[in-house]
Every structure is written in C-alpha cells, then in structure tokens.
C-alpha cells in the first residue's frame, strides 16, 4: 500500500536512527480491518503510537467493538 501522506516528524526511530513518517497503516482488531495514518519508521516499519492516541481514539475504537 503506497502511502498517501508522507511527512517527517520530530520522532526518530531509536534502532534505525531514522525520522518517523506519517503513513497509512493497516490495523486489525477482532474481525475489523482499518487503515489509518500512523507514525512509522521508514526503515524497520515499526509503528509508534503515542499515549494520547492509545488512551484516546484507539481505546474508543476498541470499546466500540467490545461485546457484553
């Protein structure tokens, strides 16, 4: 999947020493597949998810898919 947005940020991958870029990443939770912009190392493809996102929108999406 070719990225739509590619912007460099202040974050740097500790392992590769490369600036993270914002790219479309495929996310899978339960049976749902989604595609979202996330910060990613262009070298090792490790994705960075900040605390705000993890405890914010991602948690909201997780909860909205949870059952009883």
């Amino acid at each position, binding site marked *: 999947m070719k990225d739509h947005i590619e912007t460099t940020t202040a974050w740097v991958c500790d392992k590769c020493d490369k600036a993270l870029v914002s790219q479309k990443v495929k996310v899978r939770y339960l*049976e749902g597949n989604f595609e979202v912009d996330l910060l990613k190392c262009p070298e090792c493809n490790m994705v960075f998810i900040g605390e705000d996102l993890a405890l914010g*929108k991602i948690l909201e999406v997780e909860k909205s898919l949870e*059952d*009883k």
Partner: protein
Amino acid sequence: MAFNPLSMPLESLCPICLCTLDAYIYEKGVNTYMHKECLEHGVFTTILWRGDSMREWIRTKEGAHIPNPITKVEKGCPYDCGLCSAHRQHTCTALIEVTKRCNLNCHFCFADALDGKSKDPLLEQIQFQYESILKVSGKCNIQLSGGEPTVRDDLADIIRIGKELGFPFIQVNTNGIRLAKDEDYVKALKNAGLNSIFLQFDGIDDAIYKKLRGKALFELKCKAIENCRKYGIGVVLVPTIVPNINVESIGDIIRFGLSHSPYVRGVHFQPVSYFGRIPKAPSDEDRITLPEVMECIVSQTNHMVNLESMQPPGCENALCSFNGNYLIEEGVLKPVTKRSCCSTNIEKAEVGANKAKAFVARNWSYEKQVQDEKLSDWDKILSAIQNNTFSISGMVFQDAWNVNLERIRDCCIHVSTTDGKLIPFCMYNITNMEGKSLYRD
C-alpha cells in the same frame, strides 16, 4: 425413572401455590429438564434446554454486592425482593411501567395489559421512581414499558425527566402503532432524548400478527421503523418466538433487520414464556429453548451467522440469554464476538454488568451520521463501526414452571415499583396458574 439426576440441585417455585421447592436439573438424551415436587400439588417437570449440553454454556460468576439494598433478607428468596442484600447483580436496565393501558389485546402479553380505563401514574410519581432507581443503581439504562407506553400523550415529558436526571440511555418498549401513525409524536420523543425503541416485531408476515396480536400489523411496523430512521432513533426488533407460529421466521426477521441497518440496530429474540391466567400447564411442546433459537438462527441464515459467534452473557445468569455482536460487511454479518473455549474462569458479575450496560447504550442507540470529510481516520472508523454493527441476542424469561431462583438472584433487569423498590423482571411477572403474582399490583 429413566433419568440420571445430576449434581445440580436448585430452588424453584410451585406453579400452583408459589411456595419454594427444592428442584434439580437432569439430562435425558440431549435435553435438560427441571424436576420439582410440591407435597400438596404434585410433581412438575419442564424442558429447559434442547440440544448441546447446558452445563458447557454456564459461566461461573462471583456475585456483585448491592451497596444500598432496599430490603432485608427476612423470609428468604424470592419473598424479599426490593433489591435485597442477597441479590447478586447490579441493575443493568431498570424498567418503569408508565401505563397499564394498551392499544392491542395480544394473546401473549407478560404485562397482562388491556385497553382499560386505569389511571396512569402522574409525572411526579414517575420522577420519584427515577430518583429511587438512581439511589440504588446509579445511572443505569432505562426502559419505559407498560402497557403500551405510547398511549400516553406525555411520554416525551417522561423521557425528558429521565434525561434531566442524567440517565444516559432511555428506550421505549412499544408495539409501534402510534409511532407509525403519528410522526410528530416520534419527533417529540426524539427531541426529549429517546435513544432507542424495543419494537415488538414477530415476523414479516401478517398471518403471524393475526395469530399473536389479533390483527395485521406488518405495514405499521415498517412505517414505525421508517419514522425512527427519519428522526434518528435506534430500533431493536423484538420477536416473541412461539412454537408452530413463527419459529420458521427467525431468518427472515434477521434479514429484514439487516436490510434496515443501521437504524435497526439488532434483533432480540424472546422465546415465549407463560404468565397470566392459563387454563392448563404449558406442555414442553409449547416451548422453544435458547439453543434451539440459536440453531434456527444458524440454519435459517444459511450459516451466515455461526453458532460460535453467539455467547453466554457476562451480566445476567448464563441460562437467561445469548448474544452475538457483528459488523456488516457487504451485507454479510462478520462476528466480533467469539465464544470462549475455556470458560472455567470465575468472572466478576459487576464487570459483566458494566460491560452490558455500555454495550446496550452504545449498540442499541442510533444517531444519524453526518458526512464530514474533515473527520480524522479514527473518527471515520468510529463512525463506520457505529453504522455497521448489528447485534443478535435472545433472552428467555422464566415462568412458574421453569423458574430457577439462582437466576432470579443473578438478574440485572429490574422493574421499578410505585413504592420505589426494584424487583427482578421475571419475579415481577411470574404468576401462578390462576394469574396470581407475588409482586405485580
């Protein structure tokens, strides 16, 4: 006798005198039955579960603690309901009966409502009941029931009182007749804050409505759903499933619901129970059990819904219900739930109650989605989930023949009484053969 008693003793009631009886559950072939004996009124056996072993379905829970019980344990279960301090589950949904009147005369009605001239409770009385619920159970989900709540012209005021007190989710249990005929009324309910309707919906064929409800109603059901769509009110289709009447319609009902998603949020099946005055004890052939409903869902949807996607509840007792949560992808249901294969863990009832409350409030509500290109990716996902989730569930109410007092103690659906008590739903509705009830006025 040719059956093997299992180590599942329990307590039940005599369907004649409503005194407590020791009972036990036994398996015969693939079926599971309850056996009980009243010294005065004889032996009663009732089918509980046809098909796969009932024991594998059971989820063991650590009972919740009721912090502010209204009643003390004095006479013993089920004669102290209020909730009493021995109750094992919080309120997930509290029911308020806003009228005893009804604009239908159904053959099957747990409320035994009629088009009578009985006086409706005043708004002050309903406010008192909301406040009583708030004290004991906090901001749980509310269902306004009856009778038929929409016979009241001030139903919007009743909803508004609940919303102003902070109840996040209010649902009206309705036959939909007035919602079909009176669009302004629907609009007023929405403006007052109504989130969802629990729509009596027994099939897509008028022959079913004529048998169960005394008249053709399908067109009115469709119109009611359309009006809810127009104003952004979630609809849950609620079929009462009765052997020899609409068991074969289960698949059709699900397909109808799907074709009206996202405003139809799901289908909630209720296998028939026997309340009120009845001439003779219901036979096992008059009952359809939960595993049979699940089997019908699988076979009648041509396996679009698979059995493993339906799971026992974490909130109420496992024997009361099943639920499945799905995402609709190109018209097909994809399960989000998966039945756990190792259910030996003891779960906390309180955790189950909180999850169920949140699930119902989220998945049974509907808000019209605004198309906004400026939404972030995550908000688009949230919006897509809201638009594409669909729930399939079922709950079997207990009657005087199959009641299991442990299920009563585990109950999370509580009826608010005029004196501010909360009675577990089935206990409120159970009647003996003469129609006598322990709790209903």
